[in-house]
């Protein structure tokens, strides 16, 4: 998943190439597959509706990533409201997965990341999962480059502390 300099021909092409990666990005945010798939489908529908009015088709992937993250935020917000009244949403993907030795270490890291504030999680996922450069992250989240780097360093510091406390 590199930021595409080449303009995609249509929504379908984007979907074929990026849907799976975007679903995984959404899963890192919301924790479960079905919701992540819905979020991504929704984002593509939104893009489909706006395709003609898109100023720069090469920026479509950036648009999609931010649409996916926005919709993940809505999902999490709705869940937060719902969990005030009933059991919180339980099993995120990272808690159930492999119980192998390195699996445990990995899920510890992901569980700690899940406890970070929303924007810090988004920045970490875009930076370390999607491998995006700072500029692209700034465009995706519509924040300045300075905010990206300060958020990243704050996220790393907070994460280091969480992991240290856990051990």
């Amino acid at each position, binding site marked *: 998943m590199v930021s595409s300099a080449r303009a995609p021909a249509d*929504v*379908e092409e984007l*979907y*074929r190439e990026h*849907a*799976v990666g975007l*679903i*995984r*990005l959404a*899963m*890192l945010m919301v924790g479960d*597959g079905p919701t*992540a*798939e819905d979020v991504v*489908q929704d984002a*593509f*529908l939104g893009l*489909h*509706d706006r395709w003609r009015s898109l100023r720069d088709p090469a920026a479509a992937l950036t648009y999609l990533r931010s649409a996916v993250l926005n919709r993940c935020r809505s999902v999490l917000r709705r869940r937060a409201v719902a969990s005030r009244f009933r059991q919180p949403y339980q099993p995120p*993907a*990272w808690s159930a*997965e*492999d119980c192998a030795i*390195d*699996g445990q*270490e*990995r*899920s510890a*890291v*992901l569980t700690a*990341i899940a406890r970070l504030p929303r924007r810090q999680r988004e920045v*970490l*996922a875009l930076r*370390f*999962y999607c491998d995006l450069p700072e500029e692209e992250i700034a465009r995706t989240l519509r924040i300045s480059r300075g905010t990206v780097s300060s958020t990243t360093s704050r996220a*790393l510091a907070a*994460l*280091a502390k969480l*992991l240290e406390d856990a051990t």
Partner: protein
Amino acid sequence: MRSLEERIRDAYSMADGWGPAVPPPLRRRSVRHHRLRFAAPLAAAAGVTAVVFLATGLPHRAPDPTVPLSVGPAAEALRPSEKNQVWIYLCSRISANPSCHRQGATRAQRGAIDDALKKMPQVRRIERVTAEQAYAEVKKKFAGTKIADTIRPGDIPDSFRVTLRRPTDVRAILAALSNRPGVDQIVTGSR
């Protein structure tokens, strides 16, 4: 001790095994709501007509014997056991994947897939499995169960079983082969 950044990247790499291996079909918004206002009465009228027709009796047809009743469970049950294996099922006449157009993979498509696999340095071994072999395998593996009774030759299509050098190469195979003409499904052993 590894750096925190490495640990994060490593943890995120878990996500590579999540979700579907190939994108699920893209849903489309077919009819806009304001159009539905006119569509609903029309559909109702059509429905009534259909019911009347059915009530007056249509010629009864026996269920089409060529359509298999269950493709799902058997195909689901037949997946690689190793993390570094990927099974590539080819299109057949009964594939549900719309990009197969209800036609079997052509000889040229098979050849192209085979060539592409052979060129990839990550691939250690390629095994061709025909529909007949897969059928026999399921018969044997699920002997005595319902699956063995209901499955018919051809329910599971031809496939390539690919063994990779490292489990992490699965991603490269998926990138190279999903959406290639003639490929129906790619099943990985990574979950």
